[in-house]
């Protein structure tokens, strides 16, 4: 299912990983009942060195819990995790020097200090040799356009600027793996594009392994060849983006303009008419099927003036996967 890049040397390995939280709820004045919440319920996957993988799922699916186990701040209830051959929860500090983490909704920067001072602290914390630090900082400043921001206190930065600042902070120590938790949340189109370009560049030129959590599927479409979908703590899909359509039973739509208003088209093999609006009609057919026979069948028996084929919307496909599992 992987693109083959990482099959030989898995950099991240999860085997049957679970995380169960005990939650107490009020049940009357004094009584509390204990509930088990299975945030992650038996997940296994591997990610190869240098891969860039999208990790998506609805809110509360277990994405952040997985990331926190990968970084070692949460200990799995069961199963085995290895990152670069290390058990993250046992050697958290050692691993911390080799990974970068960006939480879109939180910041690693120091609110009252200029951006440059935050970077200095990062340099000391990760014991980055000065030359490496200089090189990485220059690169980030150039690619993320941070130059004018270095002297500004973080509290004065806009969300997009802060986000770029945070991403740079996560890369100053040459991490082997980068965990990005919604790195484009709340950003405008231009900032998003800039962040994506930068991540692509980092992944390509430094061979950094990237695990990207997001709700913005454009992030995935533009950055990741492989996507994993998690829902209710379980992995429901792991593979190429295109393959999602097959699993999600998505449909393409043939839009035809006929010469005049007519009864809904019937009898085209594999297709059904889903909408009629004057002379225009919409026919849905499985995404795995070629459009040619459908077009041919319509053209043969109906007065066809114009046509277009609409590809399925990836968001719809995934929304269908989520709701399908919820039922």
């Amino acid at each position, binding site marked *: 299912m992987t693109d083959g890049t990482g099959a030989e040397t898995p950099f991240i390995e999860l085997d049957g990983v679970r995380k169960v939280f005990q939650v107490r709820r009020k049940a009357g004045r004094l009584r509390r009942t204990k509930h088990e919440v299975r945030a992650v319920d038996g997940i296994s996957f591997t990610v190869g060195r240098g891969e860039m993988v999208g990790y998506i799922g609805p809110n509360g699916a277990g994405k952040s819990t997985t990331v926190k186990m990968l970084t070692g701040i949460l200990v799995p209830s069961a199963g085995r995790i290895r990152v670069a051959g290390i058990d993250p929860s046992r050697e958290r500090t050692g691993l*911390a020097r080799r990974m970068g*983490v960006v*939480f879109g909704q*939180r910041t*690693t920067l120091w609110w009252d200090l200029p951006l440059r001072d935050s970077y200095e602290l990062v340099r000391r914390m990760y014991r980055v040799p000065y030359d490496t630090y200089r090189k990485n900082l220059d690169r980030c400043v150039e690619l993320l356009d941070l130059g004018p921001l270095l002297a500004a206190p973080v509290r004065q930065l806009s969300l997009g600027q802060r986000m770029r600042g945070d991403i740079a902070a996560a890369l100053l120590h040459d991490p082997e793996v980068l965990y990005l938790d919604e790195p484009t949340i709340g950003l405008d189109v231009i900032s998003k594009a800039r962040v994506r370009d930068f991540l692509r560049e980092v992944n390509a030129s430094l061979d950094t392994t990237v695990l990207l959590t997001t709700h913005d599927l454009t992030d995935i479409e533009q950055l990741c060849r492989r996507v994993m979908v998690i829902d209710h703590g379980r992995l429901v899909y792991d593979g190429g983006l295109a393959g999602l359509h097959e699993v999600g039973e998505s449909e393409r739509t043939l839009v035809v303009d006929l010469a005049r208003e007519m009864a809904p088209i019937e009898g085209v093999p594999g297709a059904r008419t889903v909408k009629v609006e004057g002379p225009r009609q919409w026919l849905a057919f499985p995404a795995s099927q070629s459009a040619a026979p459908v077009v041919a069948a319509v053209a043969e028996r109906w007065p066809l003036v114009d046509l277009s084929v609409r590809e399925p919307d990836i968001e719809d496909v995934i929304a269908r996967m989520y709701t399908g599992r919820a039922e």
Partner: protein
Amino acid sequence: MGLYAAVARGGFRRYATYRTATAAGVFTNTVFGFIIAYTYQALWAERPRLGGYDQAQALTFVWVGQALLATVALAIGGGLDELQERIRNGDIAVDLHRPADLQLWWLAADLGRAGFQLLGRGVVPMAVGALAFDLALPADPALWAAFLVSVVLAVTVGFALRYLVALTAFWLLDSAGVAVLSGLAAMFFSGMLLPLRAFPGGFGEVARLLPWASALQVPADVLLGRYEGAAVLGALAFQAGWAAALLTVGRLVQSAATRKVVVQGG
């Protein structure tokens, strides 16, 4: 150690940016200093040599207290509300990802903060007090040096106590109530309201052995020369002992907290 020195510098500079807040703080400390000083004058007129202090020493105690109030940060707040807030809203997850020790990190930041508060909010009220009243300030530089060491230890004890309070947020989510209680206890048992030596009998003796005594009573007594010769070392050892004990407890609580951690808010 370069990292923690840099963190301490950051803590210092952070507080240095808020000049209006500093000026307001200096004003408050000075006003409170006058109020308490006049009260003490009345009290010592009735009870001369209360607690073994003459009036000049009692007034010196007042102004040392005002100078150290913000530095030792006994009152509610004092730098670690941010830690409590980070635990509550889950930002602590970011801190835990760092290859740095959480407690040392915050201790360094707090020492930096205290360093600024001592200069920014301590010196002026002390100088005003010395001009307005007849204070018993020592001329012996060795005594001042011992006082400075004692202040550093006082800050460390104050930090260790507040760190414990902040960590309760891992269980309580909101540790404001604990902070209020701890702040009240600290105000009273540090000697900020009345020197602990003024309390008679067993109660006074117990109060002088509690950790809060390290925060003001001991540094003030060091400056006033209440300890003679090697007794100064004993006083500093008393503070260092509480600092070590409380930091160790903080470390144990911290590892219990991170083990059970359900980082709030995803």
